[in-house]
């Protein structure tokens, strides 16, 4: 046994090295008098970093240090409930902040401001293979025979609910009945070949060759292109405005509210636009006013059309306007209920289960 010890050591070091290489990126505590702990979902990391650099140039942000933690939205939210130190959270769905509100960590007024608690927005898009060989133009093309779809799983990834909501809205908000919407979802999930547990995993699986279409987010597609991992995407006629909430915790450090204000201000929203998000626009959701941000359209790198990086969406659905929002309460159980614990069986949950039974 002893002669194996050396090998085990080597193997362990190799493993450790890989793990360490995979982590990194945390900013570490800075030496300023005040620190803001940001807990966020993975995607806005680049934007938050850039905003933090700008923030420390302002009188409010002078000397402020940052500690950051990024991961899957639901996991991050649960970690904060379990005691992960946080002053400011930036998550992918409102229900992940609602969880903090229920635990008394976030003030109930967090979503009562002009921005309804939303700090960044984007839209659901359809990522396709180079040259769009299956000629995917919209939601109706996804249910054709032979089209293979990759999407994160709405059951295990909160942010995947935006995708399912967009697919559902495409039918029921374009004059379809609920029965037609259900039939559409059944066909959609029957074409799904991979239901990953996070948006990041779905993108990786798609880039590694799985499927013809990836249900994705515009900002992630643009950010991926900035990191040389880009893919073509199509903006369907009808899609959903993705609204990512941000909130300051009740016992946050002193500069945290200033930070949130800064994030919502021109400088903050400018950095979001530069990393592919559509800035928050309560008057006209999804519309980007480049002049107000002090940007030219061409400043947004990685968008397919540099002249028009954030094309207008003919029929943009929002939680507030179309689904009884703000917030998910009106559609959460109807679409995503588990059918256990007194919850109704959600339409999406049932479609996913049916898809397996039909083919399996």
């Amino acid at each position: 046994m002893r002669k194996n010890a050396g090998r085990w050591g080597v193997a362990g070091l190799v493993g450790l090295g890989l793990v360490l290489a995979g982590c990194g990126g945390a900013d570490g505590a800075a030496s300023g008098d005040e620190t803001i702990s940001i807990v966020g979902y993975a995607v806005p990391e680049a934007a938050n970093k850039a905003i933090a650099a700008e923030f420390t140039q302002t009188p409010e942000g002078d000397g402020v240090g940052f500690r950051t933690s990024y991961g899957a939205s639901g996991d991050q939210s649960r970690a904060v409930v379990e005691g992960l130190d946080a002053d400011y959270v930036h998550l992918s769905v409102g229900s992940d902040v609602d969880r903090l509100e229920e635990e008394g960590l976030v003030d109930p007024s967090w979503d009562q401001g002009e921005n309804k608690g939303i700090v960044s927005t984007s839209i659901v898009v359809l990522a396709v293979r180079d040259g769009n060989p299956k000629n995917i133009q919209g939601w109706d093309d996804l249910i054709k025979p032979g089209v293979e779809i990759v999407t994160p799983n709405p059951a295990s990834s909160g942010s995947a609910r935006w995708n399912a909501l967009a697919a559902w809205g495409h039918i029921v908000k374009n004059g379809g009945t609920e029965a037609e919407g259900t039939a559409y979802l059944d066909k959609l999930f029957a074409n799904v070949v991979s239901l990953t547990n996070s948006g990041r995993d779905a993108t990786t699986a798609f880039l590694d060759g799985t499927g013809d279409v990836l249900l994705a987010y515009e900002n992630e597609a643009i950010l991926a292109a900035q990191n040389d991992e880009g893919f073509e995407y199509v903006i369907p006629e009808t899609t959903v405005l993705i609204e990512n909430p941000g909130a300051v915790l009740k016992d946050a450090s002193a500069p945290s509210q200033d930070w949130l204000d800064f994030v919502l201000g021109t400088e903050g929203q400018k950095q979001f636009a530069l990393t592919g998000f559509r800035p928050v626009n309560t008057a006209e959701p999804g519309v980007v006013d480049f002049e107000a941000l002090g940007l030219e359209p061409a400043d947004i790198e990685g968008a397919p059309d540099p002249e028009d990086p954030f094309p207008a969406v003919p029929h943009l659905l929002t939680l507030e306007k179309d689904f009884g929002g703000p917030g998910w309460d009106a559609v959460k159980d109807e679409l995503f209920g588990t059918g256990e614990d007194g919850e109704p069986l959600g339409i999406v949950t049932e479609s996913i289960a049916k898809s397996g039974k039909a083919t399996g």
Partner: protein
Amino acid sequence: MAELIGTRPAASRPALAHNLTRTSGIGLGLTMLWFSLLVLLPLAAVIVTASQAGWSGFWSTITNDQTAASIRLTVLAAVVVTALNVFTGTAIAWVLVRDHFPGKGLLELIIDVPFALPTIVAGLVLLSLYGNESPLGLHWANTQWSVYLAFLFVTLPFVVRTVQPVLEELESDVEEAAASLGASRVTTFRRIILPSLAPAIAAGAALSFARAVGEYGSLVLLSGNLPFESEVSSVRILSAIEHDNPGGAASIATLLLLISLAVILLLDLIQRRVARRG
């Protein structure tokens, strides 16, 4: 677990515990403390969480069609893979101990790679080999076979590494004596070698089974998590957690724990029978 399957039944058991010396008493105390803090407490917490949902909650969770299908797939794949490992793992250990060939050192090193590789990387590698762009033309990703494949990959070293040291210690005199007394090679293997290896094989099999049942990382990208096809129970646990249903998650985990315990006990029984035949 180690006590169950690690001790050879042939070794005489010490009389039960009344004659502990002070040092061995402290040793036992420290062992139990360490074991309790690291293992028993978390296990108890899982079971307590599961019990909060009550018997009906537990039952409705594990009888949910989709959950039950995922548990069936997980357990079946773990059993099949473990059975395969018992044969291939023993064979690989045999080759590594008894045969000499060029590249043996390299092979020895590579066997441990599935241990060392972060499982998500393993999944990525398997996806590029068996996905749509497979250079081998094998499109097993996102089917139930991907689950078997991933389990086989991550559990390969267990039986090899438990059997190998025992095989190295095995004196060849006994085999030679058996042969000189006219025993055939098959008889020698069955009556002399196998009984000595049985505890090690069982230990490796138990590790392999337990690891497979809990596997998650390597499947994240590979299996596609398709319900009733390639969704394993760890993904159902994750879904329950995402739905703020820790009781449901703990219920599935408790059932998996019970199944693993049953399999480990069964392996111990088989191992004792085989060893007794020596």
